[in-house]
């Protein structure tokens, strides 16, 4: 009986779904009652964050999580004809050019952006997406470990230092094949050593016995001396990580800039309302929460929490690669990286 009722419900679901899908022809734009924000897995904001937006516009905000930045872009590409949301949050500079070139986001940079946010705009595509968070992927080390060590070597001060066999057994790195932090670090080595030199760097690192983990959590909480039970005093993490682990430092010269963008989803039925939502993402209601909720920096000039002011490495003069070049070469670089590291 239960199953019968269930199947009837199922039939209704499918039928309604088809009706919804078929009836969505071209009609003049109306104000929607709700908008869907596509997000990544680390997206987190207080429950009442969008209350003011709802009060101002009458629109409720719903969320649809699609995994990491890379997963978002691939999943959105797949659902291009029937997008599952109106605005996307969290495509970073590694994937932004690909998202633009494949047409899954439409051109819109919020008019609320000021000179302060200018450094975060996507080079070559400045008018296409709106920066919402900023941060760096950097080498972190445990200062107390090196202070207690009787070795001649201190903590590394550059990426080139890591070629020294001494550091090999001391470092944990998230893999570029499965981790967005890992991709950022691979790009840092390409920015530093060039396309001709980064392969040798990685061969050396692997030969020296560096630990490569599948994700950031395994590296930081599993392997890092200051993160959990680990025995590696060097780890690839965020520039903001020292805000939470005062005995650690981030090495400024090793940082790769990671900016996350909000984009207008191509094919949304409500572009006007979606643009309003993108503008709202730059408001203090959202930006003030970013450090404590998502552990990256805001893009606007809102005040930072005290421990961030004190210990976190502010994003700025980090290593960078042109977004269009990343989009063009990323897969090729990763292929080479995979062959070196996986053997």
């Amino acid at each position, binding site marked *: 009986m239960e199953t019968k009722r269930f199947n009837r419900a199922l039939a209704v679901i499918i039928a309604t779904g088809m009706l919804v*899908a078929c009836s969505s022809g071209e009609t003049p734009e109306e104000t929607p009652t709700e908008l869907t924000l596509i997000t990544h897995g680390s997206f*987190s904001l207080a429950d009442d964050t969008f209350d003011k937006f709802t009060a101002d516009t009458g629109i409720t905000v719903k969320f649809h999580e699609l995994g990491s930045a890379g997963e978002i872009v691939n*999943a959105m590409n*797949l659902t291009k004809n029937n997008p599952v949301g109106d605005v996307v949050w969290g495509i970073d500079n590694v994937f932004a050019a690909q998202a633009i070139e494949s047409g899954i986001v439409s051109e819109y940079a919020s008019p609320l952006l000021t000179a302060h946010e200018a450094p975060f705009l996507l080079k070559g595509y400045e008018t296409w997406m709106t920066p919402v968070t900023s941060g760096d992927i950097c080498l972190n080390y445990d200062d107390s470990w090196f202070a207690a060590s009787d070795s001649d070597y201190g903590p590394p001060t550059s990426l080139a230092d890591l070629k020294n066999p001494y550091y090999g057994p001391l470092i944990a790195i998230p893999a570029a094949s499965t981790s967005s932090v890992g991709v950022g670090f691979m790009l840092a080595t390409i920015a530093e050593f060039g396309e001709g030199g980064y392969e040798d760097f990685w061969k050396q690192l692997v030969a020296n016995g560096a630990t490569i983990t599948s994700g950031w959590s*395994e590296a930081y909480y*599993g392997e890092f001396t200051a993160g959990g039970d680990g025995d590696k005093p060097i780890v690839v993490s965020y520039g903001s990580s020292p805000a939470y682990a005062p005995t650690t430092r981030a090495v400024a010269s090793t940082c790769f800039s990671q900016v996350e963008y909000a984009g207008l989803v191509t094919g949304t039925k409500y572009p006007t309302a979606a643009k309003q939502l993108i503008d709202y993402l730059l408001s203090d209601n959202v930006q003030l929460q970013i450090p404590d909720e998502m552990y990256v920096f805001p893009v606007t000039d809102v005040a930072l929490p005290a421990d961030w002011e004190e210990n976190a490495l502010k994003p700025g003069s980090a290593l960078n690669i042109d977004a269009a070049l990343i989009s063009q070469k990323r897969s090729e670089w990763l292929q080479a990286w*995979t062959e070196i590291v996986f053997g």
Partner: protein
Amino acid sequence: MVASLDRNRLWLITGIPVAVFVLAFFYYPLANILGTGFSSLSDTGVESLLTSRLLAATARTIFYSLSATVLSVLFGMPLAFLLYRVRFPGQRILRSLVLVPFMLPTIVVGLAFRALFRSNGALGFLGLHESATAVVLALTFFNIALIARSVGSSWARLDYRQEDAAASLGATPFQVFWSVTLPNLRKAILASASLVFLFCATSFGLVLMVGGVRASTIETEIYLQVFSFGNLGAAAILATLQLVIVLVLLWVTRGSGYNLGVDAATSVRKFTVRNLPILFASLPGAVLILVPLGYLVFRSFSYEGSFGFGNFVQASAEGVWDSALASVTIAIASSAISIPLALFAAISLSRRQIPGAVGGWFNTALLLPLGASSVVLGLGLLLTASNLGIAGWWIIVPLAQGLVALPLVLQTMLPALKSIPSRRLEAAASLGSGPVSSLFRIELPSIRPVVLVSIGFALATALGEFGATSFLARPGQITLPVFIYQAISSPKPGSFGVALAAAVILTVLTVTVLVVTEYGFRKVGKSANVGK
């Protein structure tokens, strides 16, 4: 009216809803995504596959899965005996406890195994860090419960008389087990071992975390092709390869005739000194389950260098209880989908009127969802749901979870339903009982313990689910596994401890839900019997 129902068509009537369900939620989305993949296939896409890495990944997939399956059977069988073939106080809690590994998020289990085997870890002296052995042990940890519970529930229903007769004729306990018990359990063991193999063959996160990032399998190669290289075509080829391996396995282990001399109402004997050797034999399995769990519990109580409830307090502040509620709600909704469907499927497949070939293919078709790449299936469900404009609907996630649980629940129920002696049904028929009334009066009541076991599997699958539905909208709230993933991915101070505390809460919650349902259903069943 029901009694006049044509006996020959009952298998069809019960089978059709199930077929519609798997067609709509598995085969159609799968065909959709594979079709998209193959149509985007380019020469370079194929070339990028033809590496020695792929061959190694295929070999590794088969090796890991086979080893873990054999080990799960070896470790799980003594536990099956202890938990179901004898009686002792506290047994029901232990039965629920063995299911815990099955629903723990892989990231937590992965971290626990890494921490144990790392050179400075508690088991570092074994030298198993990032080894194939470590992966096989971790996969076994996940799957012992499957063997223990589903073989156990069949074992509980075996008639003691055959074994007693053999023993009285002078057979040693081992001879009795080997030549009487084992043949009777063969089908149940094969059925659950196939499931273990399927789970292992599509395991993704655990392999990478425990085996190291170089330990690639077909499933990890699929992920790499889709998300790192944006090569959906190559992923479609790999996913097809995976399905072929799975189909070959299912064909090899497919069942022949099945006829146990079983009487449903066997009462299970008490644990005695004679069972001590089995208690010892079950130790390796118990140790493998308890050590990582013990580590998790221990770590969850260490907070800022001392022992206490700090992690739990912080987890409460971050909304772990809301997540717990969301998890339970969704788990119940998805079980309400998978249990009736599995029961329908089991009824259909156990009718003697079902043509042999149809039954064989139908059964395989219902198992296949477990052997499909969860990355590919997840994308397929997303693609299909977005085409239908229903991607954000609440019911989608319970439906997808129900799909994942269906094969598991079905394979637990089916052997029991098939093993009801035909003479009982014939006797009922000769007394004028129609197929429907003997189904409700004889068959279903006699498999009640097995249904309880299946409800456990259905709930545990849903409570721990994180894979195939990861691209579908999560309804309203964050479930516990999602909460754990978010906490563990966050650099916030203490968030690692919060994740461990949430994992322990998930464990306690699961055991509670399982004990309550098992106990509750048993009571309902008893009072219903009294009513007759």
